[in-house]
């Protein structure tokens, strides 16, 4: 006892000191990583001459002028296109992906792993390798600059992720529950609707979130396959940048508004984010 007491105290102090030190480091890093986003948000509330000043302007009277300018400049067409491309493709992904995941888990087909392998391998095909034929074929079918082309492509882009993710949720449903339902005389549709779907609803929500993030942020297809009619929000930002490159504050306002839906969704659903990004491999 008498030996232990003096040995413990410095160590405890030491530990408290190093814990405080680590906490400080963590906070500094968190602020450092977050700072560019904060700077973008700050700049969006500035006047142009404050945004591009040397030295940078740190204190200013915030203004909503830039947001007003962004929203007035016909940007709603782009937002509408993005909403259609993101929303419809996500619904299609779920309509196709949930039954597929069911057929790969609960009442599985033969060769489950081959099918899973195929789905994931399409994700590894670089998009740049298929952009040329997609462009040519879309041109021949007269669907260039058509929002439904993006809907189809975004559905294909997200479907493999959704199948893997949904399967990882279906696998967790205990078999006994489904057996009990079938013993109670519930038919397949009934079991699906009143037993299975409620149990995997959080999984469906998480899958939808991931699909929304990827579709909303997608730029490569949108850049190459749209012009004036079907252009989405990322394209709007780029055209703002090239045509009005010097309007930094307005650019930041547009970038902030464009990023905000995904940032908020990601903040709310942090847990599901990990699972989705690892395609269900990590919880």
């Amino acid at each position, binding site marked *: 006892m008498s030996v232990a007491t003096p040995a413990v105290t410095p160590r405890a102090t030491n530990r408290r000191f190093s814990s405080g030190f680590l906490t400080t480091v963590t906070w500094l890093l968190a602020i450092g*990583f977050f700072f560019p986003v904060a700077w973008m948000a700050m700049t969006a509330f500035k006047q142009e001459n404050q945004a591009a000043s040397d030295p940078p302007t740190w204190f200013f009277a915030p203004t909503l002028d830039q947001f007003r300018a962004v929203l007035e400049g016909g940007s709603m067409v782009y937002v509408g296109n993005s909403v259609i491309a993101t929303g419809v493709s996500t619904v299609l992904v779920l309509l196709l992906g949930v039954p597929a995941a069911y057929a790969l888990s609960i009442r599985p087909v033969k060769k489950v792993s081959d099918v899973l392998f195929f789905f994931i391998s399409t994700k590894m095909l*670089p998009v*740049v390798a298929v952009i040329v034929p997609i462009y040519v074929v879309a041109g021949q079918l007269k669907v260039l600059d058509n929002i439904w082309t993006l809907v189809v492509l975004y559905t294909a882009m997200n479907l493999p992720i959704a199948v893997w993710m949904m399967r990882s949720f279906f696998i967790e449903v205990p078999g006994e529950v489904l057996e009990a339902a079938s013993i109670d005389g519930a038919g397949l549709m009934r079991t699906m609707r009143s037993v299975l779907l409620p149990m995997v609803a959080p999984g469906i929500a998480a899958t939808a979130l991931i699909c929304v993030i990827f579709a909303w942020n997608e730029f490569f297809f949108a850049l190459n396959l749209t012009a004036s009619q079907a252009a989405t929000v990322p394209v709007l930002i780029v055209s703002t940048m090239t045509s009005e490159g010097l309007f930094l504050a307005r650019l930041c306002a547009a970038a902030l508004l464009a990023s905000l839906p995904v940032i908020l969704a*990601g*903040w709310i659903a942090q847990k599901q984010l990990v699972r989705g990004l690892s395609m269900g491999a990590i919880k």
Partner: protein
Amino acid sequence: MSTSTIDRLEGSRRAARTEASDRTISRAEGWRRRGPLLPALIFTIIVTQLPFVLTIWYSLHSRNLLRPESDLFVGFSNYLDIARDSTFRQTALNSVVITLGCVLVAMVLGIVLALLLDRPFFGRSVARTMLITPFLVMPVATSVLWSVALLNPTYGLFNWTLGLFGLEAVDWTSTYPVIAILMALVWQWTPFMMLLVLAGLQAQPKDVLEAASVDGAGTWLTFRLITLPHLRRYIELGVLLGIIYVVNTFDQIYLMTAGGPGTASANLPFYIYQRAFLGFDVGQAAAMGVVVVIATIIVASAALRLIFRSFEVKE
């Protein structure tokens, strides 16, 4: 090996759930099971595989995007051109540098941040929320933010900060284009790695850590002998998923440097895009696409094996 384990798992599930065993599933039942899968499967084959078959077809032709009637079979000459194309080699090298540079730096930073976040402290969830934000910003917005607001030579925040330390202003995107792109990419991907590693840390069995501490193992020893081996699977998964995503990087390059100066910072996706949509050379672009796919398959087969292994451990 790993796939057969999944089969076995499936097999046991199937046996547990239905009376019919694998062998006695009737033909009708087989189709009933396949039914829900087919729409997704057929859709994916049509939208993702057919274009690739066309890519191979185009790669054997000389074809101009603006004059589709100029289609001419040229055999493997597009591929021979690639072999002679020093720009292709340079952009391929850039692809490797940008992908590996981004993934490795982001992983090291991600591990450090995950370890820092895996301790109780005041405001931890706020700090985590702040740290994941870079990953959620639209990549196009990220590029704007870095190239215009942070790295701009005259009013960018970076040069102003350098100036505080008495250092010369640098025109980042034209003097160090690859480094400028890497900065934006690492900033975006570090949170991704951090989230995966953090999930790994939190899945660590607590009793093992307690046992180690009771046995008198110090922090460093515990980390090296217990935590790091446990994290290995998560780190591998993060690196490989990171490679798959980052190798396709286009937005940042298109917006921050346009591949320049010259082709100094172009990667393969950007170079192929240039050949197809600015050079209108469909055959060349398609052949490059095929080469990229072959290279990707080599990397991807390693990735797939790993993802399957991850699933196996989980279940």
